[in-house]
């Protein structure tokens, strides 16, 4: 399962990409979509919502389960991808292209505290056993 080296990760299986303007974009990992199966529904947070780190802010629902998506870091939602809400299956097709929402971080240094690809790889492997 692919784990791009240029992204950061959370223990709850979100990926985090830092953009040129300092905002961060969030989605769920290829591993997470593989566990959940065929996606049928996505509900993103509304733009303007203030999120605390670790706050439940989105829902992904598959044919098997519904799961919460958590804010990786604190910040305000500045964009929400309506394409994944209308076509949830794009998460299954390419989890790293199917971004869910973008946050303007309260503190941009928070991103550094997240897992890198190697640490996330280790987490995925440990959970497999």
């Amino acid at each position: 399962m692919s784990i791009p080296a240029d992204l950061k990760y959370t223990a709850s299986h979100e990926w985090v990409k830092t953009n040129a303007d300092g905002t961060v974009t969030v989605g769920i990992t290829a591993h997470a979509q593989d566990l959940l199966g065929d996606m049928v529904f996505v509900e993103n947070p509304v733009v303007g919502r203030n999120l605390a780190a670790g706050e439940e802010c989105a829902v992904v629902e598959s044919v098997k389960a519904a799961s919460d998506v958590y804010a990786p870091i604190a910040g305000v939602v500045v964009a929400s991808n309506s394409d994944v809400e209308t076509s949830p299956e794009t998460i299954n097709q390419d989890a790293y292209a199917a971004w869910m929402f973008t946050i303007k971080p309260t503190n941009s240094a928070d991103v550094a505290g997240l897992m890198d690809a190697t640490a996330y790889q280790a987490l995925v492997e440990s959970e497999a056993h």
Partner: protein
Amino acid sequence: MPFIPHTDEDVTQMLAAIGAPSIDALFDEIPAALRSGKLTQVPEAMTEMEISRLMHERADLDGRQLNFIGAGAYEHHIPAAVWQITTRGEFYSAYTPYQAEASQGTLQLIYEYQTMMASLTGMDVSNASLYDGGSALAEAVLMAVRAHKGAMRVLMPKTVSPLYRAVVRAMVKNQHIELVELDYDPDSGATPVPTADMGDFAALVIPQPNFFGVLEDVDVLTDWAHANGGRVIALTNPTSLALLKAPGQWGAAGADIVVGDGQPLGAPLSNGGPYYGFMTCKQALVRQMPGRIVGRTVDLEGKQGFTLTLQAREQHIRRSKATSNICTNQGLVVTASTIYMSLLGPEGLKRVAATSHANTRSLLAQLCAIPGVTQAFSGYGFHEAVVQLDRPVVPVLAALQAQGILGGHDLSADYPELGNALLICATETKTAADLQRYAQQLSLALSQ
């Protein structure tokens, strides 16, 4: 015949296997202070013969009264085939089957029910039913608040059944939801469009027809609610929808959620239940809708099949984050309703509604011709109306009952501002002679 499958020996063996001294010991974790002890007010068990005799005696006490009470439960003719078919072994279960997909017939019936309710209310989707009209309204309030994601207030006209308002209060009071009551116009008996700023609200409840039997100005109210950022919860009588505009067509955009009690569609009055609540909504709200939903699909071989769908919203999957703790439906009564609607068809239901409407109009005219009786509201009605008497309602109802007539529902406790007010209802079950008899007896009672 014992209905407990375990013999004493089975029980002893099972207790020995888990090392418990007795069945009572399994409940040791409940502190003694929280146990009811012996329920002295509950009588000892009776035999089937004894209980059957007792129940028949109690039923006989009801007598054969001519019933003019509505107020939420309506006496309609139920074709004999309805319960004959409903109680066939293939259908006769009170519950949604747990192994749902193995029960294709039950699922198909629920699917047909949902289709009928969606069509009757003008909505996109229906659930498989809820407990009753009052709890369905409470679920609609919770649903509207969930969907709004902000406002915790719901506008609740006083023309909604007092019983339903009490149920809603009981279900939402500990969830920080504020119910804002809206007054009615004392002349028309309908709810005027609020002129004051109502602030943020998640939904406006619109009863149609309202508890007084009066028709609300649904188009104007719907447009007002939508213009002010709230959704519209329609509370309707399903029989009336055969004649009235479907809530899906109210105003420019239609109601968002429709609820009501399904009892008028094939369930007997039966001393208050079991009835069922129906709920339909727009497609956009389907994931906020509580309860079971049956969908139609195809299997791997392309054959039609029915299945429970959107279960990820439900408690057995989402646990504490489920949209509602409702995990079931009123299967048996819904079965009867589906058969009732199938037998009557749209035309039959329209005749029931039209005859009920005409009978109530005729009764109202006859009663209002009696000195001391006046019509309370100018508003136009469906099959109920409020009359005001020149004296307290209770003794008048007692006098009527002595003559074999249940004269209506006394409103004086819930609406003291209306004085000696009586809510009457005449469905299609009443003949012209019945209406005349009521008018004659009321005239006699008021001349004394």
